[in-house]
């Protein structure tokens, strides 16, 4: 029995990090069941779903910022575009979810590639604010294209129907989000460990070296933007079919900054870091702070505490919370050493 267990652990270890991702996914899928048994509040599930959706979006941004060294404050706009397209295509045009998913990701991706063209001329703060302008143009579109977007009052959609007959409920949609997230984590891991990932890193580290080694900066910048925007739009589609409501003011600069915060807080260039960051930025207020006595009772207090938390994390872990692992190891090491020296003395 013990031997078989060891083998299982061996397989698990040999398939890392995929096995970690899949285990994480399985744990998440258990959640709706716990909700059905009344062990977890329903509202937790909604919060966790949005954390997972924002994780997908942030993974794209992490690829852009962490690997290719570009920056974007347009995330919210592209995510919003994804929601509106998904709502319009499934509700107004009555097309199947799968087609909607495809179009709602591809259209923003094309716009994202155009944004990438901007990045060929503009860098750093200029690029950040240029992408912010693009996001604001999109948001103005959400307000003014009333035929499609329904203006300020926003737009609704329903849970998705897969393959034309499989109507997903709340739990089904949640599971779908989990599946997408785990898939995206795996694909992202593959991408950053491929030659494309190395090319992006090289481009960020040294443009000169990249060019000398035959890396086409033009191509890889556009690629980085395309992937980041595709993830944003996918996040938008999933959001639309879970939250079932979208309106222009949901897609502002603050959301883009929040998603940037996810990767800075969690850990740049880290997939688990991104998930961790999403939990801190989007989860801590709803899951923890609002449940606490006093803080939870005062309007806005959870928000303030989250702001304070974000600042504290950046001051103490400027490279991301994921690096807390090393510190914990160090502490453990120190404790063990102390214990040993103590036992030696006695």
């Amino acid at each position, binding site marked *: 029995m013990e031997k078989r267990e060891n083998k299982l652990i061996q397989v698990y270890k040999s398939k890392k990090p995929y096995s970690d991702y899949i285990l994480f996914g399985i744990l998440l899928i258990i959640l709706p069941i716990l909700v059905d048994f009344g062990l977890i509040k329903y509202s937790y599930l909604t919060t966790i779903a949005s954390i997972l959706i924002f994780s997908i979006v942030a993974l794209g941004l992490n690829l852009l910022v962490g690997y290719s060294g570009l920056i974007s404050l347009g995330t919210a706009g592209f995510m919003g575009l994804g929601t509106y397209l998904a709502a319009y295509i499934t509700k107004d045009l009555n097309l199947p979810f799968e087609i909607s998913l495809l179009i709602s990701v591809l259209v923003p991706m094309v716009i994202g590639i155009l944004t990438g063209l*901007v990045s060929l001329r503009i860098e750093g703060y200029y690029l950040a604010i240029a992408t912010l302008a*693009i996001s604001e143009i999109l948001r103005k579109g959400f307000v003014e294209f009333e035929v499609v977007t329904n203006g300020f009052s926003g737009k609704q959609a329903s849970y998705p129907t897969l393959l034309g007959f499989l109507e997903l409920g709340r739990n089904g949609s949640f599971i779908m989000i989990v599946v997408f997230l785990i898939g995206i984590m795996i694909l992202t891991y593959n991408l950053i460990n491929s030659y494309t990932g190395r090319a992006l890193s090289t481009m960020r580290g040294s443009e000169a070296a990249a060019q000398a080694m035959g890396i086409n900066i033009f191509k890889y910048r556009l690629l980085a933007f395309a992937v980041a925007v595709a993830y944003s739009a996918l996040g938008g589609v999933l959001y639309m079919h879970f939250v079932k409501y979208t309106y222009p003011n949901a897609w502002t600069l603050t959301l883009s900054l929040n998603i940037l915060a996810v990767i800075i807080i969690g850990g740049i260039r880290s997939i688990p870091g991104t998930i961790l960051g999403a939990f801190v930025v989007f989860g801590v207020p709803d899951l923890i702070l609002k449940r606490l006595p006093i803080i939870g009772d005062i309007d806005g207090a959870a928000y303030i505490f989250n702001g304070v938390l974000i600042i504290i994390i950046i*001051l103490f872990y*400027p490279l991301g919370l994921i690096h807390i692992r090393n510190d914990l190891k160090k502490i453990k090491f120190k404790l063990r050493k102390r214990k040993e020296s103590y036992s030696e003395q006695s």
Partner: protein
Amino acid sequence: MSIFIQILLNSLETGGVYALAALGIILIFRTSNTTNYAQGSISMFNAFIATYILMGTGLPAFAVAILGMLSAFLVGVLVDRIVIARAQNVNPVAKQIITLGLIMIFLGLAPMLFGTDPLQFPRFVYGAHTIMGANISYNAILNIIIGIVIMLFLFIMLQKSKWGLAVRATASNDIVARMMGIPTPLITMGSWAIAAALGTLAALMIAPTSSVNLSMMDGVQIIALLACVLGGFQTFYGPVVAAYIIGFASNFISFYISSIWSDSILYVLILITILFKPNGLFGKKIVKKV
């Protein structure tokens, strides 16, 4: 002709508001090396404080505005002392996220202290005058003049005073500046304080039309950031001039082309401009050596 003059005067007023906010952002950028996304939230918060003083004391609006700017100055000092001064070793992107943390704090504090209802803030002066067929309120004239006077004063100070020299030295290289005996932490603190005061003035200028509410500065904040990009982050005057340009462009576009799409058209025009001038209208190109 009268319409043209009307638009021109309106543009000077809105341009001035944008310019005050942009000057605050560029001051902080040059001395702390971060784009302060919390500029709008800090201004909004202090506009609330000013309005509360007004409601509590019945002082005239201009006196309240001065008190509001003073409180903003204080908030700026506190923000710098408590947070920014400790973040010297934080990388630029993470520093921007710190300003997001600040947004959350002020956006959380404001409704807690002042409630969620929008508040009214009066004009500084009432009455209007007709110039060449264009109708302009005394308040607008006052705003235009206040904006220009304050900015001229700051620019003269930046060029001529000891403080200005210290700011410019810190902006060009803070390590060398510190070695030359310039108290850079004090200079940075001053920038945050002045920026907050400028932003609050901008907020109180738009308050009579927008009302004092949580999102009152959102639009101004974005335009101020765009002004920094359009004018270039390398000079102090660039963003200010760009802010006025944006003010004019926005008013002209909404009157002559489309009022619904004016912002979008404006943003597209700004994007196109910076594609041709990647370091802004007044920025110089920095050549990288291999």
